């Protein structure tokens, strides 16, 4: 095919501008890659989830209770809107895992004997199904088995209702209830210390005195069911049986985590590409405006010869589109690759029978659409100028007067008088708008660098606040049921325990007006030293003698403000409904919590200081002995270890966010370099005539280079504080957008981050400076003086 002359011009212009075209393409590639990565990653997650939930009959409503006879099942099934009901026995036990000194927590779930469960079916990864006639067989969850190197045929120890038993692993399994396998009260998975195990109902029922009875029920609803209504009815039926409150998938931990991950990805996949593509549009705008002004006469001549202005404008739009299309193609490829990496990380955390990376056409279409939009936006003003340019321009013999006239003379005058610094300043002040745009572009680059680092800062802060300021114990012990306050002395007598602090945790439904939420109400010491309530600023919040402290995010969800009176419907024991005034909100970063002073809680519950667990400070030397004891204490339901939790936090959330963060840091460096390079490159082309004149006047190569780069340095110095400010603003935008039930993003930008952003920007400037110096050396003095522009 023969190329038309205008197309040739397009190709040659693109080649001539290749440095800037590459810069723009790279920025677009980053934006498109973030769209494609995040969208394909979460679309794969969404489709794997939908498939898994449907094929393994994931329940819609869940409820735990003390004990109910099997006959109640039929009553639950009669509730309008209920499609299926499955009852079972669930028990939290302490496990003794070979090779693990501290006790692990296990959640034992019963499976119907010789039948598939009606809901929450398991997927067998290895081994064989349970044999109902054997009482010691278990299936273990894949994550737990892998973390502890457990294989089919291995045995683990467990304390079942006070009796120590040996359980034989016959199979490795997955369940839609535990795609994200996490201990109920935890925030991060710790597969070494928490596992799900399945046992036959025939074995588990008798072990927990639940023969012919159940303590857990799951429901599937018909599509048109009113979930609220069903939950209310289930709660009423279970009330007499110690029901802990039914809840939907929105409060089911694993489902919640996945939902939050998807939501988080949606934010990331929207905010970041918007910023990147905004930057691309900005770069395009600068490059094209510059191009249109140097090609004024060419545009005029095309029009004079009868090219319709549409065609001419389209030519420049195509230029923008081509640069963006190159970037989009690159970005799509990169995005698909990164998407498969993210999918790989997801596979470690989210256990599906099948979790393929299946990028959809929609993600690519969206990426193409938004990048075309960026191109159009970036090209808009240039194209409008092309449309407006009068064709008579080409006929006019002299170029319009430019305020550059007289420069040479003045430069001659200033030659001896002015320091290069004064000249630089004069140049900048002569073109304030252009200088302003350059400063803005550089500032955006700095801001994006800050934004990228902000993620690590936030995670670091999160972990500092949680694992250093709030949690200060070595070991946290929880009991199966509340014990009398004497337990405290027994704990203190255990080997290695230096000090202890007990707490009371009561399952409750907190209600305010028509909003409600299932929570664990925590009764803590008035002046806790081992477990404190800490706001996002890192400062502890003190407990009032009367009234409750709520996590700010919970207060937001319930529309509660300090001074409001909330109802706590206790879901154990006598099940009283307590009314409590909310006195303080704690801006906590993790979880949704309700705190009372332990004595106040005891008063409300009319108890004599029962305890649900304790935080212990432990002598490290004795910790093995302590763990050995805890493993076999029947009262102990779970043992948490702060350092282990910290390690797992860093290994999981940090790693999970780490991939995205790595991408972001790399992308921000690319964008910063592109911005800085572009700014220097434009300065060069704009000033080459001027600089050549100076050279003709006798300035040395070095002096001219210094003048040009000095100007760039000045721009950068102006851009840094502005970039800090914009970066902080963007971080705030993101911190506000990242507010999930499980964790919030703290707004912290550390001095190190500012320093880092400045360093990268300066490095990019030095690199671009080297390129520009190289170009300047090749500057053809005669040609640049001869050219009209």
């Amino acid at each position, binding site marked *: 095919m023969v190329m*038309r*002359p*205008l197309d*040739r*011009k397009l190709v*040659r*212009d693109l080649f*001539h501008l290749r440095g800037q075209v590459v810069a723009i393409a790279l920025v677009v590639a980053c934006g498109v890659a973030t769209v494609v990565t995040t969208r394909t990653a979460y679309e794969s997650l969404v489709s794997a989830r939908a498939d898994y939930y449907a094929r393994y009959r994931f329940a819609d409503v869940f409820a735990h209770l003390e004990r109910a006879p099997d006959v109640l099942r039929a009553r639950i099934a009669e509730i309008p809107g209920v499609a299926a009901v499955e009852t079972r026995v669930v028990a939290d036990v302490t496990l003794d895992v070979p090779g693990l000194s501290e006790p692990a927590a296990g959640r034992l779930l019963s499976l119907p004997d010789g039948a598939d469960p009606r809901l929450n079916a398991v997927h067998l990864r290895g081994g064989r199904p349970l044999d109902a006639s054997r009482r010691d067989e278990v299936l273990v969850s894949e994550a737990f088995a892998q973390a502890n190197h457990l294989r089919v045929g291995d045995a683990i120890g467990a304390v079942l209702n006070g009796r120590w038993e040996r359980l034989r692993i016959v199979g490795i399994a997955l369940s839609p209830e535990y795609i994200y396998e996490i201990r109920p009260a935890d925030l991060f998975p710790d597969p070494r210390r928490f596992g799900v195990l399945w046992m036959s109902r025939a074995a588990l029922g008798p072990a927990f005195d639940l023969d012919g009875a159940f303590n857990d029920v799951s429901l599937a609803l018909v599509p048109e069911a009113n979930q609220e209504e069903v939950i209310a009815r289930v709660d009423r039926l279970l009330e007499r049986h110690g029901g802990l409150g039914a809840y939907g998938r929105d409060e089911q931990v694993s489902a919640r985590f996945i939902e939050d991950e998807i939501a988080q990805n949606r934010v990331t996949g929207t905010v970041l590409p918007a910023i990147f593509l905004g930057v691309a549009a900005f770069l395009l705008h600068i490059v094209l405006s510059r191009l249109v002004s140097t090609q004024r*006469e*060419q545009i*005029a*001549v*095309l*029009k*004079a*010869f*009868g*090219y*319709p*202005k549409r065609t001419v404008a389209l030519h420049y739009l195509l230029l923008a589109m081509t640069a963006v299309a190159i970037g989009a193609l690159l970005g799509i490829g990169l995005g698909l690759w990164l998407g498969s990496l993210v999918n790989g990380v997801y596979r470690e955390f989210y256990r599906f029978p099948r979790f393929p990376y299946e990028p959809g056409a929609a993600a690519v279409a969206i990426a193409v659409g938004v990048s075309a939009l960026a191109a159009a936006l970036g090209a808009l003003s240039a194209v409008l100028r092309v449309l407006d340019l*009068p*064709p*008579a321009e*080409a*006929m*006019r*013999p002299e170029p319009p007067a430019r305020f550059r006239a007289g420069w040479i003379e003045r430069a001659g005058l200033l030659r001896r008088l002015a320091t290069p610094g004064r000249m630089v300043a004069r140049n900048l002040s002569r073109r304030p708008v252009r200088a302003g745009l350059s400063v803005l572009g550089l500032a955006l680059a700095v801001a994006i660098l800050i934004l990228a680092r902000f993620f690590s800062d936030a995670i670091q802060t999160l972990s500092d606040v949680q694992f250093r300021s709030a949690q200060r114990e070595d070991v946290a012990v929880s009991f199966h049921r509340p014990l009398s306050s004497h337990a405290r002395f027994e704990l203190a007598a255990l080997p290695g325990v230096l000090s202890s602090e007990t707490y009371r945790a009561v399952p409750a439904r907190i209600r305010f007006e028509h909003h409600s939420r299932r929570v664990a109400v925590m009764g803590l010491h008035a002046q806790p030293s081992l477990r404190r309530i800490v706001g996002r600023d890192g400062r502890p919040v003190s407990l009032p003698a009367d009234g409750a402290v709520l996590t700010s995010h919970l207060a937001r969800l319930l529309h509660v403000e300090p001074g409001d009176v909330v109802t706590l419907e206790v879901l154990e024991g006598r099940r009283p409904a307590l009314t409590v005034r909310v006195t303080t909100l704690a801006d906590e970063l993790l979880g949704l919590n309700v705190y009372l002073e332990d004595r106040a809680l005891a008063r409300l519950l009319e108890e004599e200081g029962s305890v649900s667990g304790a935080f212990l400070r432990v002598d490290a030397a004795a910790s093995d002995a302590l763990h050995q004891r805890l493993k076999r204490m029947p009262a102990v339901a779970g043992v948490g270890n702060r350092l282990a939790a910290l390690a797992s936090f860093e290994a999981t959330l940090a790693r999970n966010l780490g991939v995205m963060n790595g991408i972001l840091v790399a992308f921000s460096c690319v964008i910063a370099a592109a911005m800085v390079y572009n700014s220097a490159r434009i300065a060069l082309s704009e000033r080459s005539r001027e600089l050549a004149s100076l050279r003709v006047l006798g300035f040395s190569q070095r002096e001219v280079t210094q003048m040009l780069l000095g100007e760039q340095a000045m721009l950068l110095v102006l851009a840094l504080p502005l970039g800090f400010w914009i970066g902080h603003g963007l971080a705030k935008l993101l911190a506000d957008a990242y507010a999930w039930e499980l964790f919030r993003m703290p707004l912290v930008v550390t001095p190190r981050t500012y320093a880092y952003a400045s360093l990268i920007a300066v490095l990019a400037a030095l690199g671009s400076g080297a390129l520009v110096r190289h170009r300047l050396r090749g500057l053809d003095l005669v*040609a640049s003086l001869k050219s*009209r522009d």
Partner: protein
Amino acid sequence: MVSAGAKDVAVREALFEARGLSKTYVVGEVVVSALAGVDLDLFRGELVVLLGPSGSGKSTLLNILGGLDVPTHGRVRFLHHDLTNAGEEILTRFRREHVGFVFQFYNLIPSLTARENVALVTEIAARSMPPDEALGLVGLADRLDHFPAQLSGGEQQRVAIARAVAKRPDVLLCDEPTGALDCETGKRVLEVLSRANQELGTTTAVITHNAAIAGMADRVIRMRSGSITGIQVNEQRVHPAELEW
């Protein structure tokens, strides 16, 4: 007594008819009158030279005739078309089909070769000649694949003329085509223009403030301060090579 030349002119068809053309520019608070009531006919096949000091309104007049600009008052007709109230679309089509321009600063597209610069225009025109032929006409058959930066000023201007005549326009409008050229080179360019006028019969208008060029024209139109001060008919056209300045 009626001279042969004048008689010829009288029977020729008027390509352009301009009546009472005026053009004013408002620059800030100042109103500049670039044209003040100009009447002019251009006849098919003739070569006219527009002569006048700089600022006298020559470019403005030519721009209006060429459909690059519109008058503030007055009328312009091209054959049977009224250009006065024509919109952007019609003017664009008019320029594309009927007008060729040559500018003082050549205005070649630097990223296109000589041949491509010509093709740029021939490809949107209906009755054009091949770019090679047009470049042959201006004596640049051996410079087809040179970029403007690789050509001298005179060569660039000849490419510009090839570009203008290649589409066989009805009228060729040249605004100071030799303004940026030295004498010898300028003559070569004028020769090319004169040849194109004679061989292709293209009506040609050449702007200059150089009175010496007037000899090559059929008619010389003198302008001053936005008005036509006189029209001189040359009985005999002087060959550009014989012009002296």
